[in-house]
């Protein structure tokens, strides 16, 4: 086989998610009254990047065969924090941004430390820390409110050169600065190896713990970038329990749509980004076809169920039935 075929096989999940998104988006824009205009793209992009950041964050943890159920709460907490800190002069705003990102990183690092060094199951550990993060968010913002540096907010949610949505550019920058180096570093490979076969990775002398820790910590960082953007869109902080949980669950949906295996070791954050954008477009599609918004959860659920079922086909190839339970 030629090299490109192996590349294709490796990227199949990502390409599939990309394809699904493009098809949906084309249907969406061609049925939109305003068509494929800068405005429509900007709105779609601003809605999509929030879930895209959270889905990227979830990808990092899922690659290690873990799951982060606190991701939506880190997103909510950093939103509330940003509505206090990202304000004032340029210097003050910059300091606020750093504090918000640092908080996200810290939340992720706490998750990682508990899961790796405390040897707790990721589900249990992150449900607990998620509740803690939400509790802090609620203390910060008992009621929706606060404000944000509007110049910065408008710049990052607007358009560059009148065409390109700035939020999309930020997303691309984050991919280049966080995801690409991580996936090509020794730590990133350790995270993949630990997710695929922790024992084999250990036997090969791979730094499993550091790799997993980095994955959890960076997941917190990415979730806080999402939280920052939420503040830029809404100009407020809101400790909304339902929304935090919805982001957690949607991030898992996006990850699966994006071809990332929940068993770990396989997939890419880029796939998860397209999964997130596709998942968001489902809602928009219903809108342009004049469906009652009440249908949206049902439709999203059906799409997700189909996507998850695709992953189960491998079970038909198992020849020793005991392997079903591994």
């Amino acid at each position, binding site marked *: 086989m030629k090299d490109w075929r192996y590349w294709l096989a*490796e990227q199949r999940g990502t390409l599939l998610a990309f394809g699904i998104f493009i098809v949906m988006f084309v249907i969406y824009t061609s049925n939109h009254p305003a068509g494929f205009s800068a405005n429509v793209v900007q709105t779609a992009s601003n809605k999509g990047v929030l879930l895209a950041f959270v889905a990227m964050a979830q990808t990092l943890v899922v690659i290690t065969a873990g799951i982060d159920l606190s991701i939506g709460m880190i997103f909510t907490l950093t939103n509330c924090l940003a509505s206090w800190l990202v304000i004032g002069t340029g210097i003050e705003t910059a300091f606020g941004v750093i504090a918000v990102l640092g908080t996200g990183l810290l939340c992720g690092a706490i998750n990682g430390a508990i899961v790796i060094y405390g040897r707790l199951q990721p589900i249990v550990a992150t449900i607990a820390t998620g509740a803690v993060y939400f509790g802090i968010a609620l203390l910060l913002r008992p009621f929706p409110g606060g404000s944000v540096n509007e110049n910065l907010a408008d710049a990052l949610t607007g358009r560059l050169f009148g065409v390109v949505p700035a939020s999309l550019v930020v997303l691309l920058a984050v991919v280049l600065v966080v995801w690409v180096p991580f996936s090509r570093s*020794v730590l990133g*490979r350790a995270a993949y190896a630990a997710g695929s076969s922790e024992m*084999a990775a250990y036997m*090969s*002398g791979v730094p499993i713990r550091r790799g997993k820790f980095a994955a959890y910590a960076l997941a917190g960082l990415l979730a806080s970038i999402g939280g920052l953007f939420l503040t830029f869109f809404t100009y407020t902080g809101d400790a909304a329990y339902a929304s935090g949980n919805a982001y957690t669950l949607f991030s898992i949906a996006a990850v699966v749509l994006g071809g990332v295996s929940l068993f770990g070791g396989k997939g890419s954050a880029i796939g998860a980004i397209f999964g997130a954008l596709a998942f968001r477009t489902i809602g928009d599609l219903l809108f342009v076809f004049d469906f009652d918004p009440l249908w949206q959860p049902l439709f999203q659920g059906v799409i997700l169920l189909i996507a998850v079922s695709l992953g189960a086909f491998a079970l038909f190839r198992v020849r020793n039935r005991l392997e079903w339970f591994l």
Partner: protein
Amino acid sequence: MDGAVPLFRMEGISKRYGGVRALEKAELLVTPGSIHAILGENGAGKSTLIKVMAGVVAPDEGRMELDGREVTFASPAAANQAGIVCIFQELSLVPELSVADNIVISDPPKRFGMIDRKAQRRIAEEALARAGAADIHPLALVRDLPLSRRQMVEIAKALARKPRILILDEATSALTAADVAKIFGVLKRLRSEGLALLYISHRMNEIAELADQCTVFRNGRNVASYRAGSKSDNEVVELMIGREYSHIFPPKPARAPAVAAPVLEARKLSWTDRLDNVSLTVGAGEVVGLGGLDGQGQRELLLAFFGVLRGLSGQILIDGKPVVITSPSAARDDRIGMALIPEDRKTEGLMLPMTVRENLSFAALDRLSRGGIIDRAAEQRLIDDMVALLAIKTAGLDIPVGALSGGNQQKVVIAKWLMRQPRIILLNDPTRGIDVGTKQELYQLMRKLADAGAAILFYSTDYDELIGCCDRVLVLYDGAVKRELVGAEITERALIASALNIHGEDASLTQGANA
């Protein structure tokens, strides 16, 4: 070899697992530029020895020297760093990563802090070529490779680490003949380059072709070292014999004349590359043993009968009638009446946090219930019978089964199946890790069940048990039945010789003379 400077030396190495001694004051000398074969039967201590060398297991006592300096290894990575690289039987490849990723996994080449994929590709191609496996594409995912190719990747991965001592633990077990020939060429070249190779294999012909030096292990001790070729196969078997045994077995009945119709019969069973045309019969009242070295398809054979394997070819007959068994719950059905005592009671036999009572009645719940409701009184009666029959020692029926001793846990596993009064009982190494007293009770129980008419197929890694308990023993090698031993033919010598697939004409001749 005697004049050469030792590269590596082990002295007085001991290791215990619970009450079991795996190594007892073991010694080993490794010289550069030679291939050293390690021989021994199941449980002789070979695996523990190399695990100690490779930093996987820490010894309880003893010292290791590399280049004359004392060393200790805290992890496999530490041993690798010192130049000791082991190719384990259980492959250490990460399935979702590519071949190249796997080959450089311990120490990937870096550029600006990131993994240099071009350099990685080059290293992988070189290592694959050195291992004689240039046909494997470095970008292929390990998951997609067949077992024989994976083993070649494993060898390439070891070579990429530039080892000084390379340990191969049954590294050729999954390889095709063509690959074995290539690997032998590679190993001989490495020897001429001055590497020390430790070669563990049960294939005597491989050892004869490769080894310069051989060391035989028995009961965790090195009992003999000799220059390869200076001893005959029979002398080697002689060295491996002589484990210390202390079990007492119930008397065997005088062998009944050939049973009219076997209860359980297999005709040409094959499954992937693990089972190869296995045919056997087990009659009512008979205890048939499965022998051979560990991992020659015995476990798969029992799973095949029990309906766990898919894509099985060949035929299974119950009472002379062909049946297709598609699941354990079909196998336990009254028309078949089969029970399997699994190998690992903790994962396949018991639900550890659940109570003794619940565990005991799991397999028989369908018989104890009517309309989905469990008949508590009937359950209690049957459980009482079983606890009495097997003398299960427990502080109560409502404590978690995980709180019982290993021997009593195993009794619960057996009792749970006896509650169904099975006609066919498959046992997968049931005495592993249990105390001597319980073992003897199990031997007696097995005979009692056979006398009551059950057909028993018994796999054990302990040759002494096969000798003491079985009416017949089938020895498996590479998934095929290589030899059938009946009655007085079942001796340790015959078992070991046939387990190693030595064409033991003289072994059986000696036997004939004794009989």
